[in-house]
């Protein structure tokens, strides 16, 4: 096609150990078009993005396929030719801005480096262009911003600087690798809008890599769904969202859409609460991080604690567990007051409150067998004989949906979802009344996370265990929480039955939070921005 910019045919990338990372993927990118690459972790999206510049990370090798830019086959160019393309015609924006900048040089030096070293601009010209970019990206004090070092600016500013660096040679194609994944929802929306504007104003093409379907729906013209290195489906954004042809795509869409509706009837707490937190204040040294928080969890209930990073939700969990001794206030379990510090609590008290972590990989001892991991709480809390322990381990494995012969295996070779199930089994082994779930599904792929959520719900129905569920994902909250507490900067903003908290009239912060979560329709971003037109943009 006439204005076809990038054309990748039958790309094949393998790792040095023989695994196939990308298997025969083909795509085209027209000038001015945005193509979204979506998939779970391990799908190969980043690898494909990097390969558009004929770059493979250490340990990976581009085995086959043709990568054509403007008709020229990049793989056949000599090293110098390929080098001349990077940054000049295709630029890469990484996920983490902090990791992309060299701590030893100023921001201006690094932003101007590409055009100068590629011979496109003289120093003065490059500086002028950089300043213009800083202004376009809404950076504070643009004339002097470049004199700073990376560690002297905030995360959000650094990300804009990274965008400026990518734009410094006015490339034809931008490869954006999960640019908003590490950001809070409220910041994400600003960055998304900015990126969309830049792409349109400078008439660039882009490869937008992400795992979030709703985000990519806002910026992409077409979407390619990837799974384990192979292409599943490719189509216009509207078609993918509303009429997916493949089952896998349909599953992804359904999972994302599920979070937009309420699923759990809000029930009133019955009888004595399992956990009561009253006016708790928590501090690290002199810095107070939890201001007067009160919350309670009833039997068999799920109470969600939502907030952005820095809101104090994880700190609350640590305070309840005793890892962070509270400065004042009370924490009661079944009406009995718990000691502030972990070491002062009885074994029985410790048994009744269990914790599940966000990252299952580090929550399991790689040198212990699964049977040992799950069996230890049984023998520790109940002084059970080995035969009893083994029987209980089998029972628990079945309960979480894992085969019983896993008991003799190590956990290292298992998938994220399976590891999380083991963590759940371990928590259940203590027969607790309350399980504190600290973002248990955030690190998992969407479909796997879905399974885990269903499992947790099922276990609650069967065993009557209560959950204190910490998350930043409003979709999850709507699906499983009876009550919700919203936190902001260490204080409780609002608390109540979930449906009430998420229905008007809203608390202003809740409204902001809800509005910032991308929805699965392509015009969502525009409508939100139009809504905010009066208020000035929040600069981070």
């Amino acid at each position, binding site marked *: 096609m006439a204005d076809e910019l990038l054309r990748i045919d039958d790309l094949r990338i393998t790792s040095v150990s023989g695994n196939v990372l990308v298997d025969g993927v083909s795509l085209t990118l027209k000038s001015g078009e945005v193509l979204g690459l979506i998939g779970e972790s391990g799908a190969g999206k980043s690898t494909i993005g990097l390969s558009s510049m004929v770059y493979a*990370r250490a340990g990976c090798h581009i085995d086959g396929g043709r990568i054509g830019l403007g008709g020229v086959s990049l793989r056949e160019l000599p090293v110098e030719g390929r080098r001349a393309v990077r940054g000049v015609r295709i630029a890469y924006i990484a996920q983490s801005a902090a990791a992309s900048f060299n701590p*030893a*040089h100023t921001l201006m030096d690094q932003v101007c*480096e590409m055009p100068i070293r590629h011979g496109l601009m003289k120093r003065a010209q490059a500086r002028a262009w950089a300043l213009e970019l800083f202004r376009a990206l809404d950076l504070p004090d643009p004339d002097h911003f470049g004199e700073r070092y990376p560690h*002297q600016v905030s995360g959000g500013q650094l990300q804009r600087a990274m965008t400026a660096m990518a734009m410094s040679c006015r490339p034809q194609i931008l490869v954006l690798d999960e640019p908003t994944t590490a950001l809070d929802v409220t910041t994400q929306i600003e960055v998304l809008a900015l990126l969309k504007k830049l792409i349109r104003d400078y008439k660039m093409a882009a490869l937008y890599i992400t795992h979030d379907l709703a985000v990519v729906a806002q910026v992409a013209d077409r979407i390619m769904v990837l799974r384990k290195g192979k292409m599943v489906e490719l189509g216009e954004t509207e078609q993918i969202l509303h009429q997916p042809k493949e089952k896998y795509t349909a599953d992804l869409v359904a999972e994302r859409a599920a979070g937009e509706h309420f699923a759990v009837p809000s029930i009133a707490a019955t009888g004595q609460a399992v956990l009561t937190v009253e006016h708790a204040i928590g501090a690290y040294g002199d810095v107070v991080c939890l201001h007067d928080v009160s919350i309670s969890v009833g039997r068999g209930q799920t109470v969600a604690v939502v907030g952005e990073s820095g809101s104090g939700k994880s700190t609350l969990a640590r305070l309840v567990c005793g890892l962070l001794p509270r400065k004042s206030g009370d924490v009661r379990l079944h009406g009995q007051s718990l000691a502030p510090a972990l070491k002062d609590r009885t074994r029985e008290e410790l048994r009744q409150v269990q914790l599940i972590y966000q990252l299952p990989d580090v929550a399991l001892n790689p040198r212990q067998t699964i049977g040992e991991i799950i069996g230890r709480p049984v023998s520790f809390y109940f002084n059970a004989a080995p035969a009893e322990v083994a029987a209980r381990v089998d029972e628990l494995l079945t309960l979480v949906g894992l085969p019983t012969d896993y008991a003799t295996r190590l956990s290292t070779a298992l998938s994220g979802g399976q590891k999380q199930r083991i963590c759940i089994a371990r928590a259940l082994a203590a027969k607790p009344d309350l399980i504190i779930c600290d973002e248990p599904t955030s690190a998992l792929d969407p479909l796997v996370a879905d399974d885990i959520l269903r499992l947790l719900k099922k276990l609650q129905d069967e065993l009557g265990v209560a959950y204190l569920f910490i998350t930043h994902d409003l979709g999850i909250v709507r699906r499983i929480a009876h009550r919700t507490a919203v936190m902001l900067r260490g204080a409780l903003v609002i608390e109540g039955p979930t449906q009430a908290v998420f229905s008007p009239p809203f608390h202003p912060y809740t409204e902001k939070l809800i509005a910032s979560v991308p929805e699965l329709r392509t015009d969502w971003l525009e409508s939100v921005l139009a809504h905010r037109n009066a208020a000035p943009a929040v600069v981070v």
Partner: protein
Amino acid sequence: MLKIIFGRLALGVLTLLAVSVLIFAATEVLPGDVASAVLGQGATPETLAVFRKELGLDRPATTRYLEWFWGAVRGDLGVSMTNKRPILEEVAPRFRNTMFLASFAALIAVPLAVGLGIVSAINEGKLVDRTANVLTLMTISVPEFFIAYVLILVFAVQLDWFPSLATVNSDMGLLEKLYVAALPAVTLTLLVTAHMLRMTRASVLSVMSQPYIEMAFLKGMRRTRVIIKHALPNAAGPIITVVALNLAYLIVGVVVIEVVFVYPGIGQLMVDAVSKRDLPVVQACGLIFAGAFIVLNTLADILAILVNPRLRHPR
């Protein structure tokens, strides 16, 4: 940043004090009695009493320590037990000799090792790197005296290019000193270079695996530029630490070399004093060595602070 530097200096001084206490304690304030330990089982009560009187061991430990330390600070290191001469007289010229030898070796070793270490890291896995790895591995695996004797065998005995005994004295001119001290200096250089090369290589490799290096490549920068402008400025801190650590190691390596080549330095003095159990000399030499060690480590830390961009340009 100045605050941090002063803090580090203060720590260095404190460490020196603590070390001096430790050295003193190790020699004089021990369970069992120094006198019987030195004179042996067969000593009679009278000889033990005379010995104690002579060394002033009948006074409390703290007094003895303060006296010793205060004297040392002013340059009075006491008197040798074997030849009754002031220790400072013995030590001063030997100290100069040792410094001469160590500096000779360091001046060659540091640029060689750091340069080759960087080259090795840049060419990780290639022939240059693997050869360097094998050669340095062999060098650090052998005892210092082995290398020394092999060099003597080849260059002094068979080829007769250099003398096998490196006896320098103060009447020699610089060139003659350099000639006589050449073999011991080369031995030292080989040892230190091997260690320094390996550690430099490791530091540079660690910097090369940072994400901002990948970003530089993705910006289309040439390999040479990435290494020189992006990697090295960040490797400077770790490399300085490596160099200082090895210079400190040099001080220790010097001891064995001086014995092999019969070089009149402070290392040989200490070894002799230990076999003759001349405790005041042992204490004095120990203090000097430890002092040099601490000075070098403190210097290394301060230089690393000065080079760190986060500390030079605070928020």
